């Protein structure tokens, strides 16, 4: 089985049966940030802790990326195999709006306010043959909404 490696440590809990997005909360003012950061952008304090932000939320805004981005975009796709992807901000119960790729890529599949579910998706292979995984969101089914 291919070894799966997160594109960046600390963005989401991994490996995990039910992965969660990770962020930070300021111990002084309570501000939540994603990704986790040591300093607080609200009160300028520097006492923060890593917290889970959850694995579901609601779609706050969205668009669709219709053309393949230039570098630094780094997937296994070519101009021929590129598939448009959705991009949105998902409002998390942890108290922050997180920007994410969306699995939906058709305008009639996306609507502000719809429930979204976190998924961990394969993105590309690295030189060692590991599968690099990223976080994304998709429309939540009724059973896990």
């Amino acid at each position, binding site marked *: 089985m291919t070894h799966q490696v997160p*594109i960046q440590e600390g963005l989401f809990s991994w490996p995990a049966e039910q992965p969660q997005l990770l962020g930070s909360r300021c111990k002084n003012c309570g501000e939540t940030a994603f990704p986790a950061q040591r300093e607080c952008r609200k009160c300028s304090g520097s006492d923060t802790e890593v917290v889970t932000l959850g694995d579901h939320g609601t779609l706050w805004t969205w*668009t669709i990326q219709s053309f393949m981005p230039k570098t*630094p975009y780094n*997937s296994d796709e070519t101009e021929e195999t590129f598939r448009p992807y959705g991009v949105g901000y998902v409002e998390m119960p942890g108290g922050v709006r997180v*920007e994410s*790729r969306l699995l939906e890529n058709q*305008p009639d599949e996306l609507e*502000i306010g719809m429930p979204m579910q976190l998924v961990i998706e394969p993105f590309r292979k690295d030189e060692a043959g590991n599968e690099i995984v990223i976080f994304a969101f998709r429309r939540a089914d009724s059973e896990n909404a």
Partner: protein
Amino acid sequence: MEVAIIGMGLHRFGRTESLSGLQQGAVAVREALADAGLTWEQMQFAYGGSQDAGNADSLVNELGLTGLQFTNVWNGCATGGSSLHAAYTAIKSGEYDMGVVVGFDKHPRGAFNPRPRDWGLGDWYGETGLMLTTQFFAMKIQRYMHDHGITEDALVRVAEKAFQNGSLNPLAWRTRALSYEEIATSPMVSNPLRKYMFCNPGEGGAALILCNADKARQFTRKPLFLKAAAVRTRHYGSFEVFSPSQAMEVADAPTVTASRAAFELSGLGPEDVDVLQLQDTDSGTEIIHMAENGFCEHGEQEKLLREGVTRIDGRLPINTDGGCLANGEPVGASGLRQVYEVCLQLRGEAGSHQVPGKPAVGYTHVYGAPGVSGVNIVTT
């Protein structure tokens, strides 16, 4: 100390294969000097910037090694606004009497491709395809349309007006007026924004000569006055480009605070403005910036655009030279092009795109990554 604008120059925006970006900046400076009837040796200072066309102070190789103070400025799309602000304070403080502000650029074709680390972000953000200004502008207007009842009709009308104005401006890059249908059916780039609703990175140069207002009449019979220059960055809670996350609480955008500061400095209000330039890297941002700069209520834009209020002959003429949509965006020069156009209008020299009725107050606004706005107010 009051600050006057006594000279201006522009190298046409677009594509000029035969000249480097720096050379286009030099052309703009020479034109501004000629316009003011001054020489490069008389300049005491210069502020300038470019993103992709080299260090602005290399211009001394083109213009002459006179030993003047030359400061390079880099502040994203607000580079021109920030250079002008620096020059404004240099004269206002009384330290200098006269100097140049210059911006130029020459970008490769296609969308910008910023590097995450330059913006304090992890590589993953760019690698996974989240770091595109086009996406941000699309998501910002998507939410704005949802909140304020703006429809696609308004997006089309902004672009229609821009290319109409561009067709009247011999210095514009895009000089062909596009029909409503052509814009409304152009390919979707990032929903809800289509191809002709986005500006493109381009080339060009712009320059202004600033002078202590008490001495301005020695050099020109028609000085203009830079009544305010203000630059502000984002606050906690404002929704800005290159943000992996945003706060739930909502704060005023940097445009709102820069605009307020500029009106306060000048003692003028939105109702006094006769001609204005608002950052229009896409149709949606012009709509948002109309309200953020205090020229209408959020949501009112739909009606104003339908009634033609923002056209050259309307009550609130916006982006009379075709804006970024028809001129493209050479980042270093773009904010100064706006001031150039407003000065042209106030002098009554804009020809076929001249605003009727002798405009006396001009307003310019730039916005750039990662959340910086610059506002200038110029009067006769």
